[in-house]
């Protein structure tokens, strides 16, 4: 596999990071509507919990750039960046986040339960829950003789769940085409990784299951591209699973409204200075793959796309309440 992305791939990754970030910024402000000064989760156009992915975009794009719609992705309670990079229908996704009839599930799922079968994307709010289904989807492809790899995304907190260890072993013993991607943002709500995890790096746990474990430092888009490219190529060639841990950064709170008092002073400011999007922009400008004009163009187009999705969601109706009774069974 080629470890250097093509120009097209580079611009694709950059554009999808910009798309995702702008989506999160817009969700952030829409979420706060109706919630200031009194923060009541039930209020506003987007009620409920909200886990933003700001800062973690490199993980999503560096992996998903190698995937096609037929490949399978399972994600977590913090799913938006991955959904954007996997090509989930943006209109239907944003409408689902608003709970509207035109949403992916007509509003039954909400932001932690985004399912887009067209691109084989799903996510779940239970920690570690995406791994089993990824293994099973990979098995299904193998049994059906159909192409495709499965990628399970998770936070570093999930590596301490039983499901993590069981799924890694299963994928390895059956040599299935799965890639396990840990987005290590150093925190599981208020609990720091080093306070909860017996090893400093989870990629080392791969050796316990006889699979390669790869570590990517510093939220580096192209290093992620390279590591994921190798792992996905191995999976496609029938060489079995890989575990990748990426050092990434959670630039927002665990969820909206998080006081974040548990963070060491200055941590967040430091992380913001290393924001991966301006960093990658600079890299592309320096490589002359982007200039100020094309950048402005790209950013404006991305923003327009997100604005259109938000308008679509806002203009959509809710399903009639009785629709709650439908779709329990098909």
């Amino acid at each position, binding site marked *: 596999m080629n470890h250097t992305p093509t120009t097209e791939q580079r611009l694709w990754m950059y554009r999808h990071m910009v798309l995702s970030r702008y989506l999160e910024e817009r969700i952030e402000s829409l979420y706060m509507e109706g919630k200031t000064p009194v923060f*009541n989760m039930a209020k506003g156009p987007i009620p409920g919990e909200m886990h933003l992915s700001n800062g973690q975009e490199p993980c999503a794009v560096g992996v998903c750039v190698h995937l096609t719609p037929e490949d399978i992705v399972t994600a977590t309670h913090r799913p938006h960046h991955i959904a954007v990079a996997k090509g989930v229908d943006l209109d239907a996704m944003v409408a689902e986040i608003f*709970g509207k009839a035109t949403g992916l599930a007509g509003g039954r799922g909400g932001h932690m339960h985004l399912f887009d079968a067209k691109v084989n994307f799903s996510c779940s709010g239970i920690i570690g829950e995406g791994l089993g289904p990824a293994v099973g989807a990979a098995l299904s492809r193998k049994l059906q003789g159909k192409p495709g790899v499965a990628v399970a995304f998770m936070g570093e907190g999930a590596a301490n769940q039983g499901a993590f260890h069981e799924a890694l072993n299963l994928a390895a013993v059956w040599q299935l085409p799965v890639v396990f991607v840990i987005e290590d943002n150093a925190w599981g709500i208020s609990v720091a990784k080093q306070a909860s995890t017996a090893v400093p790096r989870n990629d080392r746990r791969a050796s316990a299951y006889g699979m390669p474990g790869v570590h990517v430092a510093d939220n580096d888009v192209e290093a992620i591209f390279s590591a994921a490219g190798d792992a996905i190529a191995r999976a496609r060639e029938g060489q079995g699973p890989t575990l990748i841990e990426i050092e990434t950064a959670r630039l927002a709170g665990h969820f909206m409204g998080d006081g974040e008092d548990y963070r060491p002073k200055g941590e967040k400011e430091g992380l913001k200075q290393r924001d991966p999007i301006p960093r990658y922009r600079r890299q592309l400008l320096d490589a002359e793959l982007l200039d100020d004009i094309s950048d402005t163009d790209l950013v404006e187009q991305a923003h327009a796309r997100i604005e259109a999705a938000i308008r679509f969601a806002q203009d959509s109706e809710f399903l009639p309440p009785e629709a709650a009774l439908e779709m329990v069974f098909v």
Partner: protein
Amino acid sequence: MSMTTTGAGTRKLTIARAMAEATAQEMRNDPRVFVMGEDVGPLGGVFGNTRGLYDEFGAERVRDTPISETAFIGAAVGAASDGMRPIVELMFVDFFGVCMDAIYNLMAKNIYFSGGKVKVPMVLMTSTGGGYSDAGQHSQCLYGTFAHLPGMKVVAPSNAYDAKGLMTAAIRDDNPVVFMYHKSLQGMGWLGTEKGATVPVPEESYALEIGKATVVREGHDVTLVSLAAGVHHCLRAAQALEDEGFSAEVVDLRSLVPLDRETIRASVAKTGRLIVVDEDYHSYGVSGEIIASVVEHDHACLKAAPRRVAYPDIPIPFAPTMEQWALPNADKIVDAFHQMMLS
């Protein structure tokens, strides 16, 4: 045994604070008591019920855990059997799926399997309930699921006075107790707190007997039975019915296991009518159990078929329009009463 409104001065507590206060008082008296769970340490619990404990007792006795529910709930069983009195938190009851084996095959059965020679004095506290659009994996009550499985006591308070007394009793109990606290009663403003749950609470330590229901409002036309947040819906419905000239009695179960069937039966014997209100799923749950408990005992006392206002048998939808439509509320209880009077 005190009732909900007696014995207290002017100081009020939220349920979150009442739980933390009971825990702190027991921890001061008994070095065997310790707390484990996700974010229970410096953060004080996502729902505030371990606030202040870390500062007072330190990291040794107030332990933030990895996201490893099977391990730390199993560990609580082991520690409890070995002479400690752990309190563990399952952050949302919906997460029981990843650790139910530790709960119902270990925690609930070890006393029995050992012929009573092994004690399992532990508390599993867990949050329940929705109403704020947290969707299908963060909004369930699952009261019936836990109460159905033998071997664990189950409590679900509706106010801070009961919460403190039941928490103290749960910690002192030599049996495993599941302490289910409803998010909307917790006193966390961001969850849209029910004001009626924040009530006067005595500062001194006290225990409420587990397994005793209480009549929180007396009446003679209908008995409304509920627990946790449902009690507050019932109280509002009772007020609305009073405006129509009917008098409703409200029974707060407080405990599901053991279930105080006597108090329920006595109330229905008096009123002749029964409506059970449950935010848990309709079928195979608390509401059916309460009705059966009355009917199998004496159906002649009933002037009308009992009714239930429960959550429909569907996963909890995210969209507020659908969720609010599906949840029990005071209007639905009043409607149920009207229909009962028509038929």
